């Protein structure tokens, strides 16, 4: 039954609901696939076989008892290791949390369970979600199933690679500057960043609290929408959660799948054209713009003059928030403690623990943030970045008065070889060039496969107004009918 791993989540759910297969069979097929290929991909940091099979048996038992189950019941899902899972190791890709078993579930994981999905395990990521290649994981990199000498994107490279390697039909990611969308783009999968506040951060290990957004990853736009619907919505335990219903993303994905975009106005940001996009990425993007036109969309060029300052503003705001958030890793309440020899003071033990527990990229960002927030530099760096954030938001607001959604390449380059950008940290940051504006604004964005460049996947990003997540699903699903899903070579 290995073909079960090639099906979409919607197809799997249909077969389970019809009694043509069981949740246990589906789960076994995916666990077998993980056992067969994950030594080459390394998408998973922890596979919870026993927990998955128990959850699958529970779904099958409830169905046998005649219980009405949700649209994703029995479908396996891989969860980025940034979300707490009760009793199941949660490392955030860091040595500082090695072996930690959280005493509680994140809201996202609770909702996955309530939806009857089956959690297979926890996926690899750049340490504390800081990175664009998964090479900053303390547990070794994940490899791109399209070419195992190349990166799968980051920080959620494990979730994206698990999908592309057919180890899971659904996965959860988190997006602070592009960590769902860029891995989606370079692995030929779909990744959506919901509106900030549209998905709960309760139990999401914090990196940059004003930007962090958990969201769905899948191989099809409809699957991403189904997962978005299952995990989204107000959570009283997250004070920045928006108290409004989730936009009807599933209906929008189905409407888009009719391939009709008549009356939809899409904006192409003119400033992005100057930003050093690889020729193959630009070619695939331009072909997709033609395809969207054929589907009935009207393409309008719009100017967003402050978008070119999004990356520098992002790389001040996110490190500033991180330097504050990661102060909680002090070797007292959870995680690593080293150097407690009875002679060192608390402060010395903290410093030695953090030095041993954090990797180089995390240390760089903590120090950049500490610098940007320090007196004397605050106004010129963090304060100025917050003002730029206002101007970027105004650019979006003005653009959305003229168009329904904005489109761009998701990321300027295809999957690069492992090691190509680790020696120059700023080269890695450039991966977020087109994704970071959306995070600063707070609106939703989705990456959908739009073609190949040199045999490697290219993603197109659709950006929509705040709480208009449904719009991006409609456009993405329509493009999917023209481009089709991308199939990687056999591993």
């Amino acid at each position, binding site marked *: 039954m290995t073909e079960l791993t090639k099906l979409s989540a919607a197809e799997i759910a249909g077969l389970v609901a019809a009694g043509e297969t069981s949740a246990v069979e589906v789960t076994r097929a995916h666990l077998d696939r993980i056992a067969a290929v994950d030594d080459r991909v390394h998408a998973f940091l922890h596979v919870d076989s026993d927990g998955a099979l128990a959850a699958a048996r529970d779904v099958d038992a409830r169905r046998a008892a005649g219980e009405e189950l949700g649209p994703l019941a029995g479908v396996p899902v891989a969860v980025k290791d940034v979300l707490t899972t009760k009793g199941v190791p949660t490392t955030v890709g860091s040595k500082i949390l090695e072996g930690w078993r959280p005493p509680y579930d994140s809201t996202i994981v609770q909702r996955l369970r309530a939806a009857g999905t089956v959690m297979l395990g926890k996926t690899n990521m750049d340490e504390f979600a800081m990175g664009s290649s998964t090479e900053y994981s303390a547990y070794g990199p994940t490899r791109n199933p399209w070419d195992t000498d190349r990166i799968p994107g980051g920080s959620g490279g494990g979730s994206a690679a698990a999908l592309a390697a057919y180890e899971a039909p659904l996965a959860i990611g988190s997006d602070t500057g592009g960590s769902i969308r860029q891995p989606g783009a370079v692995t030929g999968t779909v990744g959506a960043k919901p509106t900030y506040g549209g998905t709960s951060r309760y139990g999401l290990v914090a990196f940059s609290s004003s930007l962090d957004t958990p969201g769905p990853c899948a191989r099809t736009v409809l699957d991403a929408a189904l997962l978005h619907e299952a995990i989204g919505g107000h959570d009283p335990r997250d004070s920045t959660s928006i108290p409004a219903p989730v936009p009807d993303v599933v209906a929008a994905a189905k409407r888009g799948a009719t391939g009709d975009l008549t009356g939809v106005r899409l904006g192409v940001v003119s400033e992005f054209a100057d930003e050093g996009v690889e020729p193959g990425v630009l070619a695939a993007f331009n072909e997709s713009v033609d395809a969207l036109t054929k589907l009935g969309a009207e393409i309008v060029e719009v100017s967003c003059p402050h978008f070119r300052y999004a990356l520098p503003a992002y790389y001040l705001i996110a490190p500033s928030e991180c330097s504050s958030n990661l102060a909680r890793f002090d070797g007292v309440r959870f995680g690593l403690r080293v150097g407690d020899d009875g002679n060192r003071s608390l402060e010395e033990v903290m*410093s030695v623990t953090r030095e041993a527990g954090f990797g180089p990229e995390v*240390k760089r960002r903590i120090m950049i943030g*500490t610098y940007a927030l320090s007196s004397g530099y605050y106004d010129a760096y963090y304060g*100025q970045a917050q003002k730029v954030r206002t101007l970027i938001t105004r650019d979006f607001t003005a653009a959305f008065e003229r168009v329904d959604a904005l489109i761009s390449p998701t990321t300027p380059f295809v999957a690069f070889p492992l090691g190509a950008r680790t020696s120059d940290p700023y080269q890695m940051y450039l991966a977020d060039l087109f994704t970071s504006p959306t995070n*600063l604004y707070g609106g939703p964005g989705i990456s959908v496969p739009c073609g190949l460049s040199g045999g490697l996947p290219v993603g197109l990003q659709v950006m929509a107004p705040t709480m208009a997540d449904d719009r991006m699903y409609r456009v993405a699903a329509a493009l999917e009918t023209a481009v089709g899903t991308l199939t990687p070579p056999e591993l």
Partner: protein
Amino acid sequence: MVAISREEVAHLARLSRLAVSEEELDTFAGQLDVILQAVAQVGEVAAADIPPTSHSVPLTNVLREDVVTPGLTPEEALSGAPDAEEQRFRVPRILDEDVAS
């Protein structure tokens, strides 16, 4: 033009409670310099009269009813602690006077 010196990086490391090695300081000084020069581009934007945005969701004073809900037991709350004693987190010494001479 250097944005940040090795000495300033050493100071940042102390403020950040990171006991970085001398070798790391050499590497970080160069890297942080490149990063800071790049992000300093935000200074090109004329924004003197622009209000700052700290958050994209305009919510203030989110309140809830004061109702007791289940929480963690002391055992659960302490389950990840490197050291615990009498239902408390146990920490290394805090006061310098405690140093044995």
